[in-house]
């Protein structure tokens, strides 16, 4: 899924120049890089095992104790360690869900857009239908049916949020398929599959990349919703969503337990949203929306 690899060098230069002007996008990129690094090295950075219980050390306040920089929770588990490991879980779900979303959406979008006719009508009516259901409803119903594992949660999120991507890809393909390079490929006798995936798909890389970035943000958000409601990541595995659920019970006395994971979710979602917004402006001036 490397769009930049398909971009010639001078184009990368132009895109980078446009992207750099976007301060918030740069900040978003930095936050995303930091989050990915902290998730990747969570075992290294975490002061202790996130599941280690120490009932003697319950509800430590942040910054009070160097052994627990961000304090401890109701079971005496180290909050920083849980945040780092929870981030790992949340980001994994976010990324796997994004891949599912993009793969499904791109496949349906390119099929509908390229083949047209009744296949297009059928697929797009299916998209319209799926969009009639509130995503959280759909997500929760399906999540309640399947046993919650990291993979199943990611897949469920991915399979309930691909519709937008398929519309974006379809629109792009409809525009691209009229171009002469597609006619040239047909004149050479290229198969439909070759035209769809070798000729057309790489040309839709820019909007797909933008959508992918924004989809990580929404997938992290969705994971936190369903984990918060108890249908997502199950304890003792920490995720930001289920940390919030636990914290809600002690909300009036130890608010930081809720503030911290919430802030982590917000930061992640913002990071990916800003990054996606900046990428959109840099890669695809046509889709531009903000100053």
């Amino acid at each position: 899924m490397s769009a930049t690899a398909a971009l010639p060098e001078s184009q990368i230069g132009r895109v980078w120049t446009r992207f750099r002007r976007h301060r918030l996008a740069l900040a978003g990129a930095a936050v995303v890089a930091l989050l990915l690094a902290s998730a990747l090295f969570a075992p290294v950075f975490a002061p202790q095992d996130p599941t280690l219980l120490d009932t003697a050390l319950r509800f430590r306040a942040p910054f009070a104790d160097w052994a627990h920089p961000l304090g401890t929770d109701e079971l005496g588990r180290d909050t920083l360690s849980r945040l780092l490991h929870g981030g790992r879980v949340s980001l994994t779900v976010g990324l796997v869900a994004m891949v599912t979303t993009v793969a499904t959406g791109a496949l349906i979008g390119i099929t509908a857009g390229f083949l047209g006719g009744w296949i297009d009508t059928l697929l797009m009516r299916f998209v319209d239908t799926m969009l009639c259901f509130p995503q959280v409803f759909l997500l929760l119903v399906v999540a309640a049916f399947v046993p919650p594992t990291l993979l199943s949660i990611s897949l469920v999120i991915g399979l309930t949020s691909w519709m937008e991507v398929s519309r974006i890809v379809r629109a792009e393909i409809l525009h691209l398929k009229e171009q002469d390079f597609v006619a040239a490929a047909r004149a050479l006798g290229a198969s439909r599959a070759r035209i769809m995936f070798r000729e057309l798909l790489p040309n839709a890389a820019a909007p797909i990349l933008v959508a992918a970035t924004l989809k990580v943000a929404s997938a992290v958000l969705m994971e936190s919703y369903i984990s918060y409601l108890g249908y997502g990541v199950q304890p003792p595995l920490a995720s930001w969503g289920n940390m919030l659920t636990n914290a809600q019970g002690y909300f009036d006395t130890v608010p930081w337990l809720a503030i911290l994971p919430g802030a982590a979710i917000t930061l992640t979602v913002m990071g990916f949203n800003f990054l996606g917004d900046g990428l959109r402006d840099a890669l695809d001036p046509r889709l531009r929306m903000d100053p």
Partner: protein
Amino acid sequence: MAEALLKVAGLEVHFPLRSPFLQRRIGTVRAVDGVDLEVARGETLAIVGESGCGKTTTGKAILRLIDPTGGSIRFGGQEIAQHGTAALAPFRRRMQIVFQDPYASLNPRMTVGSILAAPFEIHRIGQARDRAERVAGLLRTVGLPPEAARRYPHEFSGGQRQRIGIARALALEPELIIGDEPVSALDVSIQAQIINLMKRLQAERGLAYIMISHNLAVVSHVADRVAVMYLGRVVETAPREQLFFNAQHPYTQALLSAVPEPVPGRRRSRQVLQGDVPSPARPPKGCHFHPRCPIAQARCAEEAPASRIIAPGHAVACHMVTP
């Protein structure tokens, strides 16, 4: 004499016009409406006409990029108008196309190398290693350095891109190349280079060309024979000299009189056509040209003229022309 390389008879491409809501068929666009053409091996046939006359659609229908709704296309003695994808595959190697816009006809996300290797991959010709050599050979043939293979289309000028387009068309060693206005998007100084390249390739490889163009100056340089199209039909076909110096159809005459005379002082009377080209969704009855024709008679509005041979290789579809 053996059968011509390409023989098109009664070719029709009709597009349905549909209503916006219920997609009912409310009319027909007769983009190509009964076209007869012949191309011999090694010769160049030019199709000329104003934009919208159906010349590009004719070219694309011959290549089966657009499905014809009627008529016959015989290539190398075989009927291909009704062939499906699989049956067409061997013919794809024998007919190729060069497009008008060298910016849209090369995939911007592929290197020139992969664009030129595509024909070999699709037809499973050679191994990956010697494909690179074949690509280098193609580039040399069209006058580009082999290093061009590593670069992307946007790094080249329009003329260079058109060379790449020609290289792609040559890759499968076709017998016929259809040039859809291959030079009209280029600077005048570059046009001559590309035309000379194409003529050289024709001489070296015995290629046949169909040159689709609205530019009679270009046509006079490349064509052996010329077919003039008006509103989906061929109105006159003749060898080049015959057409330029002895045009019979009133439309051809009007078209020629609009070309600036290359020899100053030798003026022809300029005929200016009245009115606009009618829509191919509602072509006039009888001869399509009659509402604008300076010599039209009552019969022209009723009866479509058949094409008649008036001299060797010279056919005209006009009631008013007598052999």
